[in-house]
């Protein structure tokens, strides 16, 4: 096969979107995407439904043809290539195992399709199954496996062809929370074992993206809004959308003063020297960095709702007409709804965003 690396010769190929636009009947579903996935990197495409993330993945796979732009895998322009010539591994949400084939035959499918010498196939199948811990299930049919096991087989099937690029389309969303957590760890381990494989991971789950990705591309309304390392996006988001979608931050409208900002009638200290005096901006504070009780940058308001979340309580407090979220360590005594409470946060924990920045 033209795409996959020859046996024993690891090849490092990244993915490059060069102004890729996809439209269905004139309706743009992916708009001018410029993005590079470095060789061996895990890039998460994170966004809500309809944000264009799956379309971007399908453009790499060859299932949609861009109306503009080019897609590259390594140095190859694959924009016009049919899917079977691209040399990619793909895992989808509902596993898509072939129900009439046993596990081993499922895993061998790609090897046979790529005309791998017959003598090599059993070894390659065993290797892929061992990698995913499914070697003892080779003789079973997919219907005899649990959801998690089926997903492992799907991953083994994709890895068996030793792809340069692995596309994962919401691979864990059909699993329950506990299995998902285990599979996340498995995927992280697999990537450590296969450091040359570039992975494009589509998800709407920020935990999966934060856990697994080297970098996250945040998408919304068919466009790329932000891109950076998980730590950067979480701690220093550049856009309101990123701040809200990744970590569900508090976004408070403020007016910039001299060394401080004004939120309603309250003056708050912030650690930034980039803001323009007098401009309107958005102050981003993560809920878990907001404390209950008096302190610096105190905000007084009425408790609107309390949610117990095991080790934490989430408080919703109405401050100057805005609802502020705070995740605090489990309270021994919870305040009553309607009580006046005080929240606070440290100046260095707040990020000032230019108002209305959507991440064009």
């Amino acid at each position: 096969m033209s795409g996959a690396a020859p046996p024993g010769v690891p090849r490092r190929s990244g993915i490059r979107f060069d102004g890729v636009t996809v439209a269905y009947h004139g309706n743009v579903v992916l708009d001018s995407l410029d993005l590079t996935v470095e060789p061996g990197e895990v890039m998460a495409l994170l966004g809500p439904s309809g944000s264009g993330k799956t379309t971007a993945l399908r453009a790499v796979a060859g299932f949609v043809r861009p109306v503009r732009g080019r897609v590259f895998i390594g140095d190859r322009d694959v924009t016009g290539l049919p899917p079977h010539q691209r040399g990619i591994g793909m895992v989808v949400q509902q596993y898509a195992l072939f129900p009439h084939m046993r596990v081993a035959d499922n895993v061998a499918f790609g090897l046979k399709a790529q005309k791998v010498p017959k003598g090599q196939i059993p070894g390659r199948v065993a290797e892929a199954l061992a990698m995913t811990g499914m070697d003892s299930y080779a003789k079973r049919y997919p219907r005899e496996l649990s959801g998690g096991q089926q997903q492992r087989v799907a991953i083994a099937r994709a890895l068996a062809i030793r792809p340069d690029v692995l596309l994962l389309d919401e691979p864990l969303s059909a699993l329950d929370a506990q299995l998902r957590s285990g599979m996340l760890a498995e995927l992280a381990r697999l990537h450590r074992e296969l450091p040359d494989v570039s992975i494009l991971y589509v998800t709407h789950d920020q935990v999966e993206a934060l856990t697994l990705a080297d970098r996250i591309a945040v998408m919304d309304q068919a466009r790329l809004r932000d891109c950076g390392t998980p730590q950067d996006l979480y701690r220093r988001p550049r856009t309101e959308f990123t701040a809200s979608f990744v970590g569900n931050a508090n976004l408070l409208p403020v007016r910039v003063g001299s060394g401080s900002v004004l939120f309603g009638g309250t003056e708050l200290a912030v650690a930034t020297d980039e803001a323009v005096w007098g401009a309107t901006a958005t102050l981003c504070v993560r809920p878990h960095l907001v404390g209950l009780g008096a302190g610096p940058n105190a905000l007084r308001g009425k408790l609107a709702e309390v949610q117990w979340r095991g080790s934490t309580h989430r408080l919703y407090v109405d401050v100057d007409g805005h609802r502020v979220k705070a995740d605090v360590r489990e309270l021994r005594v919870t305040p009553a709804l309607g009580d006046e409470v005080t929240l606070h946060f440290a100046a260095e924990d707040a990020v000032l965003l230019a108002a209305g920045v959507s991440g064009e």
Partner: protein
Amino acid sequence: MSRRGSTALAGDPAAGAVSTGSAPGAADPPIGTARRQLPTAAWALPPVLILAAVFLYPLALVVQQSFSPDSGGTSLQPYTDVFASTAFREALGTTVWLAVGATAGCLVLGFLLALVVAFVPFPGGKAVAKFIDVFLSFPSFLITLALLFVYGTVGMANGVWTDVTGAHSGPFQFLTTPWGVLLAEITYFTPFVMRPLLAAFSQLDTAQLEVASSLGARPARIVRRVILPEALPALAAGGSLVLVMCLNEFGIVLFTGAKGVTTLPMLVYSKAILESDYPAACVVAVVNIAISVGLYGLYRVVSRRVGA
């Protein structure tokens, strides 16, 4: 209906008292049970009787007649005579090869057309799929008539040929041969294969096809290794149906007017109506029924094995 009626009675103290003479409430469950059991057999009886009267009894008469030679009494003579006749053997051979040939043609053509309709997006694809449902309701002679208009001796194709070349007659003379019957049967019965196939294809997860493609499989391999195995139960169902229908087809053979093409149903017709040889006609009919029932039994066994 009976269940509802029973429940109402069971909850009705007066009914309980009338039925059992015991105290209301205590006797309710047994009454309900008894009333539920009785109607089951009673409701099954009328359809069985109707079936027996309108279908099984005439069928039994046919079988009885097949053992009743014109010379009187009951014997295997009609069977011996019919089985010994060349006409019967030829009709049996013609029937089987036409049915098998038409079924094979329908399976190949139906599978290819269903593939296109289901997996190759084209304008009007949904309308085509709906038209197949309508097509199933057409009478078989209509298709034959349409073919006569196109390929008949004085049909369009020959008309165009004679107009263009000035020849006395056109080259399309196959419609009155067994090949014409075969073409008509394939044309008419192909949708009967397509219908279950389209239903099966609509259940197929298209992600399987995409993953297969991403793994390096070309379209032909995807069809052979992914789609075809999934379609086997539907192919078996459609193929069996077409085979049985082809074995019993009468209208198409009659309308093509194919000389020398005598199938078992045509032989029944000629023996019974043209020659008034009822015992022989009944023997041929019994053979035809035996083949159909045998094939149906085979279909059931096969479909159970492939999980249809």
